[in-house]
């Protein structure tokens, strides 16, 4: 539907000019305009359905669950027990109690298991929402991520394990494998490239492309009618990379997130955003 509309706009231009490069540029401009319209809705909780997830996440955060029948409100996301402001801007980070570098989703699972003694099998089964199936993780990430709005992405490097995992993430970004020989860098390693008509952010260099990206997840994806987290984005990119489906909340996903956040340092968080 949208693509047809974009092509029509591009056709109109083609009558006037006359180079394929120009048609494609016009199509891109139209698609940019549409994305701009989404952006205008981001800060309006009435227009951005991602805020419904934020509200659901707030309820889940204070809901008593698990064997211990307590809420998550004493969960330490790195800023101290129960402190949410700015926590997302500094995740993933090293946690002494688990002796691991964890992203928000790994940390939430850890808190459910240790603070609440909740059996997380069901939560993990619903890691990605679908029609008629809400995802606690998506909702919690929307709620907690939102508490870092206006703050800057601050990659953590003070603990040796944080440095190490960032380096692993960087190496993984360039690992070429699978039937197509793809790595992340195959699609995200050069500026100004696109696959079909989709612009591809370049994460090989630190700066704006990485900042704009990492500061805008979690996001409400219009095409999927769902709020999505970085776990879902990377899962989807591994699909396109013709690699297997990664385990949820696996070490390598946190490693990649560490590396992407390093490239995105200083990006100002505004989530949940809205994307295609």
């Amino acid at each position: 539907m949208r693509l047809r509309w974009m092509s029509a706009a591009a056709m109109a231009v083609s009558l006037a000019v006359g180079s394929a490069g120009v048609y494609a540029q016009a199509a891109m401009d139209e698609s940019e305009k549409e994305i701009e319209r989404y952006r205008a809705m981001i800060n309006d909780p009435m227009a951005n359905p991602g805020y419904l997830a934020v509200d659901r996440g707030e309820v889940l955060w204070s809901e008593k669950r698990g064997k211990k029948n307590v809420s998550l409100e004493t969960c330490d996301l790195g800023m101290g027990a129960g402190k949410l402001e700015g926590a997302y801007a500094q995740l993933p980070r090293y946690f002494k109690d688990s002796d691991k570098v964890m992203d928000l989703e790994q940390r939430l699972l850890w808190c459910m298991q240790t603070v609440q003694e909740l059996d997380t099998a069901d939560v993990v089964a619903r890691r990605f929402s679908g029609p008629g199936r809400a995802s606690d993780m998506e909702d919690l990430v929307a709620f907690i991520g939102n508490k870092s709005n206006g703050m800057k992405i601050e990659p953590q490097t003070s603990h040796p394990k944080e440095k190490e995992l960032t380096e692993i993430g960087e190496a993984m970004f360039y690992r070429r494998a699978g039937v197509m020989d793809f790595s992340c860098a195959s699609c995200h390693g050069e500026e100004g490239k696109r696959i079909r008509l989709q612009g591809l952010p370049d994460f090989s260099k630190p700066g704006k492309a990485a900042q704009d990206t990492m500061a805008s997840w979690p996001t409400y994806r219009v095409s999927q009618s769902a709020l999505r987290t970085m776990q879902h984005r990377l899962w989807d990119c591994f699909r396109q990379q013709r690699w297997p489906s990664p385990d949820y909340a696996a070490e390598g996903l946190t490693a990649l997130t560490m590396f992407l956040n390093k490239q995105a340092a200083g990006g100002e968080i505004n989530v949940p955003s809205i994307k295609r």
Partner: protein
Amino acid sequence: MTIRTLIAAGLAIGLCTAASPALAQEKTDAAAFQKMEAAVKATFSRATPEWQKRIELDETQRLCTIARNQVSAADADAIQKRESASIVMPADGKFLGDWKNGFAVANSGRGGQFSDDAKTINGGNCYACHQMDPKELSYGTLGPSLAAYGRDRKYDEAAIKDAWKKIYNSQAVVACSNMPRFGVTKFLDEQQLKDVMAYLFDPNSPVNK
């Protein structure tokens, strides 16, 4: 026209070294490589053994991974030699099939994904990376434009043979190329390769109009 020339110029520069823009001093050393492999293993622990096997590195992938595509001249030679040896020319000596079927091969990005089922017919997904038919607006720019590919080469025999090699195994021509190795991986079968070749080289193909 100007745009095509510009792209060609850009390509010429790009091809002086290997395939990607990573800086030369950025490499994955042996210790980092070990840690990365352990992390990859942990990340796909729930995948089936068959899927896990799919992302083990062959020697070419290993070299391109470590060097982040900026392989030394010696490694580039070794890669191109090894990959060239894998190329199989068409059994009947005919390089060109049906360009109409070739469009389907070039246009489809299906196959090889964990969301695909066993009946999925693989596509070459050439349009994801290349401009081909100049009237087709939805094309990617990871690779150079292939518009008028056959016409520009005057449908020359040698150019046809070279293109077969390129598509069969891109890394026989450019070490660590970002283009998949469609023939040697058996991602496309011989007939599909012939058809997509015809899409590039048949004078009636819209690519050459």
